[in-house]
């Protein structure tokens, strides 16, 4: 009779095919179970570890659900005022041109209060990388309407659905900044399936590599769910995202280096 292997026997270094990156701390994530932020954090930190960039990285955290990103990322980080992360990153990068400088921002931070800072950092071609997590809602403050909220979508401040006649249209800021000569690589990804995670990882790798070439700003949007804000289960929210968010915010590269 064959003996079953114990978990201790299985968990040996030679059997290890995947491990959590050492650049994520042991702090419990403050994100709701099912949210895409955790995966986005992991992919960025994994890439920084693989590229051996920890000592050269300075990150900028936003205001929003990911305000505490510095609790989870084991790198030097600054917390910026709401929307100002691209300006903060500009200040760092101009004074440390050889460091890897990135911002991590949500849709309210990047595309509403920080629109000016976003567009001008992109237009100056700052050699920074912007990671933009778009879930079409203000998560941290309790599910209010965001600049990227879809038409008809119900939120705490558009309880009857976003009425474009009075509340305006969702802002496709990624398409907008892709038109600026200062941006070098602009892409839109997702992290809700294994396949999309693999694609997003590749995009993140490119965005970090390109910064070294000093070619301009790299911008990676990650369309994510907000199951709490959308008042759905994680699975329902992923399905809703595929059916409603992706048609409006199509995935894929928007601007690639020539």
């Amino acid at each position, binding site marked *: 009779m064959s003996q079953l292997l114990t978990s201790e026997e299985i968990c040996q270094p030679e059997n290890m095919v995947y491990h959590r990156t050492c650049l994520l701390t042991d702090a419990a994530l403050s994100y709701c179970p099912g949210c895409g932020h955790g995966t986005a954090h992991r992919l960025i930190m994994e890439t920084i570890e693989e590229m051996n960039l920890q000592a050269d990285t300075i990150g900028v955290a936003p205001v929003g659900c990911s305000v505490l990103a510095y609790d989870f990322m084991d790198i*030097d980080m*600054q917390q910026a*005022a709401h929307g*100002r992360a691209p300006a903060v990153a500009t*200040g*760092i990068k101009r*004074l440390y041109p050889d460091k890897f400088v990135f911002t991590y921002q949500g849709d309210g931070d990047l595309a509403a209060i920080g629109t000016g800072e976003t567009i001008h950092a992109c237009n100056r071609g700052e050699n920074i990388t912007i990671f933009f997590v778009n879930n079409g809602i203000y998560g941290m403050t309790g599910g209010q309407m965001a600049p990227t909220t879809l038409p008809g979508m119900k939120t705490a401040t558009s309880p009857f659905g976003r009425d474009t006649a009075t509340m305006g249209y969702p802002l496709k800021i990624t398409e907008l900044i892709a038109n600026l000569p200062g941006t070098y690589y602009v892409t839109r990804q997702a992290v809700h399936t294994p396949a999309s995670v693999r694609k997003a990882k590749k995009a993140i790798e490119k965005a970090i590599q390109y910064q070294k070439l000093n070619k301009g700003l790299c911008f990676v949007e990650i369309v994510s769910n907000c199951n709490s804000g959308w008042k759905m289960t994680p699975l329902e929210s992923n399905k809703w995202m595929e059916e409603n968010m992706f048609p409006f915010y199509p995935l894929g590269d928007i601007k690639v280096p020539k």
Partner: protein
Amino acid sequence: MKDIRLMKGNEALAEGVIRAGCDGYFGYPITPQSEILEYLMANNTKERTGMIVLQAESEIASIHMVYGGAAAGKRVITSSSSPGISLMQEGISFMAGTELPCLLVNVVRGGPGLGTIQPSQSDYFQAVKGGGHGDYKMIVLAPASVQEMYDFAKLGFDLAFKHRIQVMILSDGAIGQMMEKVELDEQIPRLADAEIVKKYPWATTGKTPDRERNIITSLDLNPVKQEIINQNLQKKFKHIQETEVRFERFMCDDAEYLFVAYGSSARICQKAVMLGRARGIKVGLLRPITLFPFPTNELARLAKQVKGMQAIEMSAGQMVEDVRLSVNGAVPVEHYGRLGGIIPAPDEVLNVLEQNFIHSKKEKRYEPATY
């Protein structure tokens, strides 16, 4: 041989910033201080010292660029004038909450609103009492000459890094625009990145294996911790009040009456003191150089000596409140101010002092000059 030049106040400040070993300037044009950005750009600082100069898209962006650079241990500065400084209050509050050193310059113009481009001192409260949200103070330096515009650049950076605090040079359109001779110092070299890592272990310079990660944040949701953070800030401000007070006494030793004025008003009062002495009035001038910390103790001492104090400001009466708090009712304190960009004349302020303290109160009060 001494390097002496004839310069505008704004230009002298810009030259002082370069020579103080500044790493980066981020700013947005606004009258009456645009010469600062223009001078820095024209001087090709990148080649001269390696200093970065960037014209930002707004004052809001400028102050947050300063935040980013300061949090990485660099000597950084922004400058503006009143409406622009109002826009920066968010960033200044964040820098207060994160205890970041930086130099800020306000070449004050008249307000409120768009007001005027003429000189004023109506931003005293904003500079000295906080300005942005939360309990905080900045060190506020008030230059009264073009030479001090130059000198306070280095002094400001030194104080900012000594205490990890924001230092504001509170100038005004008159000091910024007027020309005087300036004596320049030798260039102070900028710190190398490796020196910054050593000198400022708190700075976000990239996490190396020999230390924990550095985090610059003003957020702590735990009220017990947040109270301690605030109490520590207050301890620092108290220490600064005890150690960094600067002022100038002009003919105070035998004074029976005292002008209290800073910046360009102090220059006017200096002349008024000379006029007063010629009229046989024993009048002196106490010029606060630091507006925070305010020379409270010196004024309290002088209150035992003089019969009255005449505060002169180009405002509706802001600094005078600190003078009154300092003397605590020991002597009468009067305010006289001109508003909207009008600069008072020396004989005008001397007549006011005479009216208030020397002539009978029943006599006709002095009529301000009209323009």
